[in-house]
């Protein structure tokens, strides 16, 4: 991978980190009245996978969608405005943080029902194949979604029809507060694809370059119409299932466990690599950080100043075209 690409991936990880940290900072003001599922600690997967996607490629995500949307190029100001419930938001205030949609960037729906986005993505891949389009579909989901029947139904069909789709499981070992081991007999998500003849891979989701390399190979294969692929990325979320707080105080997860994962910070790891290989300098990083923070400042300001939707709009858009 060349230095320009690595810098780009670093920048994507950083903007996701800064964006989520800003949500954490602003959330207690209680003006962002939408449940936020933060991806702090998981940034490398979004950055590494989306690095390989083109504008027209489809991306499906989950309630924990901020990072994926940012990595796919969705406007920060329109996202923030949506969090503030504004008319100027990505979904005109009708979706909120869990249902971000940006058709121009290939994000045509975001479901917050666990596993709900997986068949949507497979359907999009079916559409692509039937129309003989040159696009790929990537769908992100968590380890919780693997508990759902629709995951297996979707893998089965994607394999049957050899659809152009990459399944990316972000295994952060928790579904809300339930551990993976309390829900699944074996820690083998990547292997489950293989029973359908879908190649399954596993990688360290906190290593941005490993994710980028492996995802690159898989996306390329999907693009060459080699059929669906599955990638399990092992990672950890720093905050609670929902909201800006860490959940160790509530006793949901042990503090030691969280601290251990924070020491494996994907951003720090990449930063260290970049400094060691002289891809970036400390000054250069500071410069990027300042630039991105300003972008977020601007997005927040724009979002806060935007108009709220009209009460009367509540029944608009129930059906298309009204």
């Amino acid at each position: 991978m060349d230095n320009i690409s690595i810098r780009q991936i670093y920048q994507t990880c950083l903007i996701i980190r800064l964006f989520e940290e800003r949500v954490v900072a602003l959330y207690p003001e209680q003006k962002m009245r939408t449940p936020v599922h933060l991806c702090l600690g998981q940034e490398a997967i979004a950055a590494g996978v989306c690095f390989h996607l083109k504008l027209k490629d489809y991306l499906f995500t989950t309630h924990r969608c901020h990072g994926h949307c940012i990595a796919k190029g969705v406007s920060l100001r329109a996202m923030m405005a949506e969090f503030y419930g504004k008319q100027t938001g990505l979904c005109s205030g009708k979706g909120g943080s869990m249902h971000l949609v940006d058709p121009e960037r290939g994000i045509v729906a975001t479901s917050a029902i666990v596993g709900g986005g997986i068949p949507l993505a497979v359907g999009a891949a079916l559409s692509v194949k039937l129309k003989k389009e040159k696009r790929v579909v990537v769908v992100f989901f968590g380890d919780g979604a693997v508990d759902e029947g629709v995951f297996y139904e979707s893998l089965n069909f994607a394999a049957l029809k050899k659809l152009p789709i990459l399944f990316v499981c972000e295994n952060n070992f928790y579904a809300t507060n339930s551990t993976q081991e309390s829900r699944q007999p074996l820690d083998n998500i990547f292997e489950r694809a293989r029973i359908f003849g879908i190649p399954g891979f596993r990688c360290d989701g906190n290593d941005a370059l490993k994710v980028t390399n492996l995802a690159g190979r898989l996306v390329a294969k999907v693009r060459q119409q080699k059929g669906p692929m599955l990638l399990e990325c092992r990672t950890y979320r720093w905050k609670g299932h929902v909201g800006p707080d860490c959940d160790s105080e509530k006793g949901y997860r042990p503090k030691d466990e969280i601290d251990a994962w924070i020491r494996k910070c994907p951003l720090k790891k990449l930063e260290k690599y970049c400094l060691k290989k002289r891809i970036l300098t400390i000054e250069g990083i500071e410069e990027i950080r300042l630039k991105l923070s300003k972008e977020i400042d601007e997005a927040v300001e724009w979002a806060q100043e935007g108009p709220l939707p009209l009460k009367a709009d509540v029944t608009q858009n129930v059906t298309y075209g009204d």
Partner: protein
Amino acid sequence: MPWTKVAVDHATGELSMNAGPGNGRLLTYGAALREAQYQALKRDDRVFLMGEGVDDSGGIFGSTLNLHKDFKGRVFDTPIAENALTGFINGAALTGSRPILVHMRMDFMLLSFDQILNHAAKLCYMSGGRVRVPWVVRTLVGRGWGSAAQHSQSLHAFFMHMPGIKIVMPSSAYDAKGLLLASIADDNPVVFVEHRWLYDLKTDVPKDEYLIPLGKGFVRKSGKDVTVVALSLMVLESLKAADSLKKEGIDIEVIDPRTLHPFDEEIVIESVKKTGRLIIADQGWKSGGAAEIIAGRLCNKIRPYLKSDIGFVTLPDAPTPSSPALEEGFYRNARDIVSCVKETLR
């Protein structure tokens, strides 16, 4: 399935139905559905058709027969995975296709409620109107021959509760074609409820494509004494009831709303203004069913004209039984409509 033949022989017979503009080209309901899909597939590359058994030698009672030969790759069999299949059509519709999914039994649609109600119904709204979900789910309702509780349910009322879903229930071959073409052309998810007992019913069906607007009811028979709003198979039963009541000098008006959402309130209100009496005949249960929902949405608007209570011809609140003796006490037909009309006039 021999029993389906028996059942259908039961249901049709000689019947005059005001089905629409006639041209003397008689087609069965099943053949009309097939023709609509053939024409849609031919005209529009975005349309595809899938479902369990669509390409088998029965072809969903003829309604998809051999379409897979004419449209290779666009008409195909599927795994038995109702919820995922519905997710697939959601995803396909979101990305520019116009899918049709067929469930041979409506009962199995209960497995796909997450993708219909949590997804299809809301995806447009949640996006602030930026995306559309133009699909049609064709689904068949059966009746009789001991089909029992899991192969007979008409679950259309469930969808009436959920904003964002259109519901269509054709009762003639003419409507089957025109409403199906309109549903395929619609930019929203449409649940298209067909009745197995209507499949062999023949009415005039124009050869060319035509659209029947969703939300426009139709007066199947005009009359002055009692308004009967009937859905799907109950339209036929109401027409039979009308024939028999005529002999007793009672003249009922039979209204077929054709679609439950959108619902043509105006056509019913106008009729009740004239008759002062309303009966709703449905093939579903009474409690929380389509008949109660229709009565609920109309009652304040028609109260000034009503001369008697609203009558309901609906299923008793029990699962569908199997024994013919019990079915006799379960299903509603022309005879029940006749008694309800007389009750209303008393």
